[in-house]
């Protein structure tokens, strides 16, 4: 009897086993039920007989047989459809499921289906975490701070739409592929940012979500190894995540990049991320925004200190990013980098013109960045007003506390 935990095997194999079962069964929900049946059978059998050598093939084969039983029992299905499906499934060769290329193709199909643009973003995220990562409904619900019932409903609706609108279980054709890959990346990045910088709640980071997002990024890169945008996103996530241990005090208070203990950064992860950035930026064509963001993160990660950071290059990269993907958040970051190159007054001019140009009310980082610049310019009264504005807008408790501390220092 091997000492590997059965639950760990399920977690590792659930996504791939489900991906193959959906292709064989031709229906998302039937495949999920079949996999649950296979897990139940495994829980009864494995502790006695040991974990099979190829656990995934075992789960797929048992799941396939369970699905045939279920479909035969189903009376609400139209007779002919049922017959055709069971015949096709009986003929399906279990042996082919061990073929790594076929499993990889199934996995890609599953990812593209879960991240189909016809599903809303919340549903894409929930389905991906459930089906691809094998997370339980309750785990996903807790990660997104919604009730388990709400999350279950979200998943049921998404699967109902896949079936009723016939969202295909396919890798998109060449004409659509770039756009669809971008959609998948956006969903993975959303999972990461929700883990790395949650939009609400008391915690500064939710490690589980970031970890799943990195796992998804690695999986996608394994499936589409030459894609610069995939390399860029994985690099970005690895580089940000490498600073995890230095980002907060044990009490959960924010430590900003400039004050972080750089010896706590994960050097192995930084090296991996930096190598991926290089690969991504060497690809022909316009760079992916993820790769440019990753390049910025790599410059930070490889600098010995805040002062010794290559600010000129970072400001230049933000400039590139602004042209690729104009957004007020990037403009704010650009301004912060400019303050290190051309001084706080130049940066303040940028921030003020940004505030005049864009609708940014409700975004706490704008007054927070303004306040920092005003402090550097020794305009303390204005800085205090800006901090107060930022405090009123900040949604995360640790962010508010950090801003309050800055305000207090000004007296």
């Amino acid at each position, binding site marked *: 009897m091997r000492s590997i935990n059965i639950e760990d095997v399920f977690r590792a194999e659930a996504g791939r086993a489900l991906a193959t079962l959906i292709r064989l069964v031709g229906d998302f929900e039937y495949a999920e039920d079949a996999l649950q049946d296979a897990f139940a059978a495994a829980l009864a059998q494995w502790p006695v007989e040991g974990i099979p050598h190829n656990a995934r093939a075992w789960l797929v084969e048992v799941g396939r047989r369970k699905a045939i039983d279920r479909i035969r029992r189903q009376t609400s299905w139209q007779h002919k459809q049922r017959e055709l499906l069971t015949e096709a499934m009986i003929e399906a060769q279990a042996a082919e499921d061990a073929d790594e290329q076929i499993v990889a193709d199934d996995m890609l199909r599953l990812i593209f289906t879960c991240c189909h643009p016809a599903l809303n973003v919340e549903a894409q995220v929930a389905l991906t975490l459930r089906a691809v990562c094998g997370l339980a409904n309750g785990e996903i619900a807790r990660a997104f701070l919604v009730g388990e019932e709400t999350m279950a409903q979200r998943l049921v609706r998404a699967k109902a739409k896949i079936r009723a609108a016939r969202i295909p279980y396919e890798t998109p054709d060449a004409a*659509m592929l770039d756009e669809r890959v971008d959609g998948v990346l956006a969903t993975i990045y959303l999972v990461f940012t929700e883990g790395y910088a949650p939009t609400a709640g008391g915690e500064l980071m939710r490690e589980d979500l970031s970890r799943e997002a990195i796992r998804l990024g690695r999986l996608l890169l394994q499936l589409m190894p030459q894609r610069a945008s995939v390399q860029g996103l994985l690099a970005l996530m690895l580089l940000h995540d490498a600073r995890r241990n230095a980002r907060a005090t044990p009490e959960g208070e924010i430590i900003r990049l400039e004050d972080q203990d750089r010896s706590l950064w994960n050097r192995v992860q930084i090296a991996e991320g930096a190598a991926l950035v290089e690969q991504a930026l060497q690809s022909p064509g316009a760079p992916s925004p993820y790769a440019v963001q990753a390049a910025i993160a790599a410059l930070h990660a490889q600098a010995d200190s805040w002062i010794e950071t290559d600010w000129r290059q970072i400001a230049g990269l933000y400039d590139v990013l602004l042209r690729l993907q104009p957004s007020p958040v990037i403009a704010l970051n650009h301004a912060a980098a400019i303050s290190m190159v051309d001084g706080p007054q130049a940066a303040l001019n940028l921030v003020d013109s940004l505030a005049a140009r864009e609708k940014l009310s409700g975004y706490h980082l704008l007054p927070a960045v303004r306040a920092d610049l005003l402090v550097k310019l020794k305009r303390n009264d204005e800085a205090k007003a800006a901090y107060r504005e930022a405090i009123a807008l900040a949604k995360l408790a640790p962010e508010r506390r950090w801003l309050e501390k800055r305000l207090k220092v000004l007296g």
Partner: protein
Amino acid sequence: MQYLLLIYSNEAEYAARPQAEVAATMSEYGQFTQSIIQNGNYKGGERLRPVAMATTVRVRNGKTLTTDGPFAETREQLGGYYLIDAKNLDEATAIAARIPGARHGCVEVRPVWAMGEA
């Protein structure tokens, strides 16, 4: 599998367009319709009169209530439809994207709920 493609646009904006532009759009619609007939996707389709021509009917307690106008006032109005046969949603949305009206209004893609289907 059948899908109904509902074409919405702003009637007022559409009516204000120059004659030549309207004629060009009409000819594009003709070409588009021909192409989906040839590909075997076409099941039906018509242009609709403006909502000013609409009448709404309700039956309450056995009484028929007839009123002028559409059932809901919206910024964009239903102006026409196609009924198509497509192998899946991706094919249906690709066809919807080729409808000339998709470039200024929008097209809602609705799967047909076939009789007897769960």
